[in-house]
């Protein structure tokens, strides 16, 4: 019995030695100060232009950590009755990256975008630029937005607007009162 115990102990030691010591990365969200902050989310108004809806959202101090929170908040849809949801309700944010130089990569997914979003030019244009406008308006270091779908580059979200390059805000789509 002693031998068995010794053998198991030795085996345990070997296994323990082989197993790498976990190196759990520091959690930036925990390190950041999370506080209620006011964000501007851009939706389509009845005038068929983008208009900002302000909302208080619990956000980390770090912009890199806050970007996906704001984009997810945008995709939840507007709170004001007159504003209009632009993205399919099943759209998800898979990941975001805030890169040095001001490009924000937003990786979208969800059944509709994956299977083919049947929409018109206007709605697609407004959807794409509502995201671009929201990101660049809330994060001064963000200059442009590059969209991916399911982690890969896409030509368009719905067959019209090219998302093969980083997109700058398009002020002509925004109601002058909210530019």
């Amino acid at each position: 019995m002693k031998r068995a115990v010794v053998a198991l102990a030795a085996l345990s030691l070997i296994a323990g030695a082989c197993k790498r010591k976990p190196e759990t990365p520091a959690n930036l969200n925990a390190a950041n100060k999370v506080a209620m902050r006011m964000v501007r989310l851009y939706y389509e108004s009845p005038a068929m232009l983008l208009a900002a809806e302000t909302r208080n959202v619990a956000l980390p101090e770090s912009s890199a950590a806050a970007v996906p929170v704001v984009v997810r908040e945008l995709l939840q849809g507007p709170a004001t009755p007159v504003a209009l949801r632009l993205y399919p309700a099943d759209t998800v944010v898979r990941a975001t990256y805030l890169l040095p130089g001001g490009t924000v990569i937003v990786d979208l997914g969800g059944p509709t975008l994956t299977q083919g979003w049947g929409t018109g030019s206007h709605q697609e244009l407004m959807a794409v630029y509502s995201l671009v406008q929201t990101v660049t308006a809330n994060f001064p270091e963000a200059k442009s937005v590059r969209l991916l779908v399911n982690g890969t580059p896409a030509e368009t979200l719905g067959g019209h607007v090219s998302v093969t390059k980083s997109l700058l805000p398009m002020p002509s789509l925004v109601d002058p009162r909210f530019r």
Partner: protein
Amino acid sequence: MKRLLALGALVALIVTAALAQASGQATLRTPTSTASVTYVEQSGQVYVAAGDVATALGGTIAPDSSGFKVTVNGVTAGFGPDSRYGVVRDDLIEMPVPPISIEGKPFVPWQFFHGFLAKAMSMDVAWEAATHTLALRPAQRDAISVQVSVANVQGISKIVIALSAPAEYSIVKEPTAYVVRFKNPVRAPFTEERYEDPAIASVSLAGGDLRIQLTANDIVGDAYRLENPPRIVLDFRKGAAPPPGTPVPLKPSAPQEAPGIRTIVIDPGHGGREVGAVGPNGLLEKDVTLAIARKLAAALASTVGARVVLTREDDSVVSLDQRTAFANQYKADLFLSVHVNAAAVKNAKGSETYYLSLEASDELARKAAETENVTSTPNPTADLNLILWDLAHQAYVTESSRFAQSIQEEMNAATAVANRGVKQAPFKVLVGATMPAALVEVGFISNPEEETKLKSDEFQTMMVDALTRAVQKYKTDYETRIGLIQPAAPAPATATAPATTATRTEP
């Protein structure tokens, strides 16, 4: 007891085997040093510990909200656990599979560093399986890569020589040729290229001499250089140089270069499984666009006197790139993409016309390309695409605007609904068209009232009539401006009206 020992040995074997198969130490070899990095092999894919490699190269790795950021040599790349794309600057790094995490430690496919270190250190990276070595060596740049594009822009033959790096050169004028004499070694993917161009017959490379052979000895050229990315541009025109932008009439002896609107490509939006927008009562955008495009093609063929071609004639899938490529292959003089709109605003109505906007999408790409070329490995293909895009933009944006304006005016007159106007947007189907191009949205299928109209033959015919008038109006205007047809003498009552109004031909 024996059983217990046997079980212990079995577990030990499994653990050992698993470790032997799954991980080990690889060598990271640079031109000046070697280091040990952890690697893992799963299903034939080699992953390396991103932190080990970054540290060995004097860099850092840090988690962020959605993955990790690796910084080497001042350049940062990001990757996440779910995406087989990393990002560096504005470019994507493609990996065969997504990175993995082992006990919280990120492992990336070794190809991540192939893409990343080309940007960060101008290094080529290879995995040497026999010795388990990640080998870094300076990227091969023994000769400057040269790519050439030729385009005729408003009567001026423009040649753009795209360089993979700045080069020293001089330009020597010969009686019927210009020779760009490089002081650096250069290479090109061709020995000689021939062109059907009024001024440029061929371009050939021999040694360090790039020879631009002209079609005649009375052709004058202007040369200038552009930086970021490095380019040499030569503009050629016959005889004395007219002011920039002046249309240069082509000689009748060159019928293949005859100006005017001779071929029109009509593009019915969507098709096949790509149905486009769907109306509240089930009408599909792809069906409306095909019906209108077919009628429009027939109307144009009989009234405008041009060859008219459809990008699709049935319910088939045609990619967006194929549509413009199709128009380019046919050397179309005009491209019109027909669409039906949809909006979240349920009572949206009216038509609108778009032409390509590059400022929203391309300005940053240009800046990124500039930055990239200043600080790291140039990408000649991307540069050339950018240059061709620039050329197309310069040449056709004004004409596309005029064409779009003509369409919108006729649509407004026909439908008497709210004028939604002419707009610019980065529509994919207009990208790459080397001719004046526009996209018309004939109505809102998302509005039940307009959906009913769009389905009706009467409304479709009204749209077709308006579009036919618009094409005819633009054609007459364009051909008048380039001197192909004489402007009609203005009548006293319409002395201030544009000549195109007087010469408009009703179908």
